[in-house]
């Protein structure tokens, strides 16, 4: 089971309070985790990545185990601690200053 932390705006949209726990096919990749998020919470489709191209939205970032996974391929297998459920996969709205 993969733990996923959504940004506050998307928690509200998905009507969830805390992190979500999802069953993801082995081996869990960034792409398959996002597939599972959108399967369980269809209202989030298009908010994290493009509906058609699946390209990450520019101001969304992915983190896990203190690593920035935003720029790696969506086929990348997530760290072992995420697979083991010890660490969450974080979906974060990028900081925008001003």
């Amino acid at each position, binding site marked *: 089971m993969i733990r996923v932390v959504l940004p506050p705006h998307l928690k509200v949209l998905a009507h969830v309070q805390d992190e979500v726990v999802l069953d993801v096919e082995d081996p869990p990749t960034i792409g398959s985790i996002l597939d599972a998020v959108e399967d369980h919470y269809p*209202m989030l489709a298009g908010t994290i990545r493009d509906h058609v191209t699946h390209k990450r939205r520019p101001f*969304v970032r992915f983190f896990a185990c203190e690593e920035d996974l935003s720029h790696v391929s969506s086929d990348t297998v997530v760290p072992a601690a995420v697979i083991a459920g010890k660490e969450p996969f974080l979906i974060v709205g990028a900081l925008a200053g001003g």
Partner: protein
Amino acid sequence: MSGVRVLAGTRKGAFILTSDGARNRWEVNGPYFGGWEMYHIKGSPADPNRIYASQSSGWFGQTMQRSDDAGKTWVPVGNKFVYDGVPGTHQWYDGTPHPWEFKRVWHLEPSLTDPDLVYAGVEDAAIFKSTDGGMTWAEMPGLRGHGSGPRWQPGAGGLCLHTILLDPKDAQRMFIAISAAGAFRTDDGGETWKAINQGLRSQYIPDPNAEVGHCVHRIAMHRSRPNTLFMQKHWDVMRTDNAGDQWTEVSGNLPTDFGFVIDVHAHEPETIYVVPIKSDSEHYPMDGALRVYRSRTGGNEWEPLTKGLPQENCFVNVLRDSMSVDQLDPCGIYFGTTGGQVYASSDGGDSWTAIVHDLPPVLSVEVQTLS
């Protein structure tokens, strides 16, 4: 007992303001969708409990919401807006070709008769249609297929389709407006479109009388006279009496004819309202005085309406979708400002009251008249 429901979209959420027919006391509910930009919220004329809302965010893009109980509860509906076929290009600010890219829904126009049918005007400019209550959306490609599409260029706010008017006497006819392409009309339910910009003159484009390229800010119609349209253009207030085939300027004695909003009195088809804004570089009222101007003659002769509006140190803007009217008698007029006020007049504009003061910047105001 009649009543009024005002739907206000703001930069940081939606608000619903309700009152009875006297329109003296207002209950404010919200924010709904706190933190999200709510470009437009509009109720179905066929079922006032059905409300559609456009919710967007620079981070998370476009989402859509629908309420079937007058805004008490909401459900997310479809947010997949994919252009039909190969999107092609329009002009970018520097004149180079730029691929069509969906950014957001600016305007929602529910059908006059079918609560499940709703149109969406989007940026980059296109019109989409849903026949299942917003669950799925399909582009009406005839509009972008108009031969002029590659020459459309964004205004400062983006290449947005911001106005959709449905002809209450002809279900096949509708009007749309795009900043900065101009106005278009379909007479066959959206299959084909005609540019209706004859008579518009825009000095800032190479050919001031061009077929397209005009920065139309808003168009309004009285339901009893769908061939008569009133337009607030970037500069100039215009009218047509032949469904857009020819426009004439009716700015008359306005102190400035720049502005965004325009609307028509519910019971007097020749009584129209605008809020003049100083200029395209100074988006606030002249002299720091917020004034609605009313013409009872369909334009040309205008009178300032100031009672109850701030007449000094007021530097707000009134954005293009931020004025609406109710259907009560006397007619109520409403507008929202970038300063977070929603002003209402329950006497046709003679006097005004801020029915709420301190919302986030107001992007849109729609009114439902309840029986």
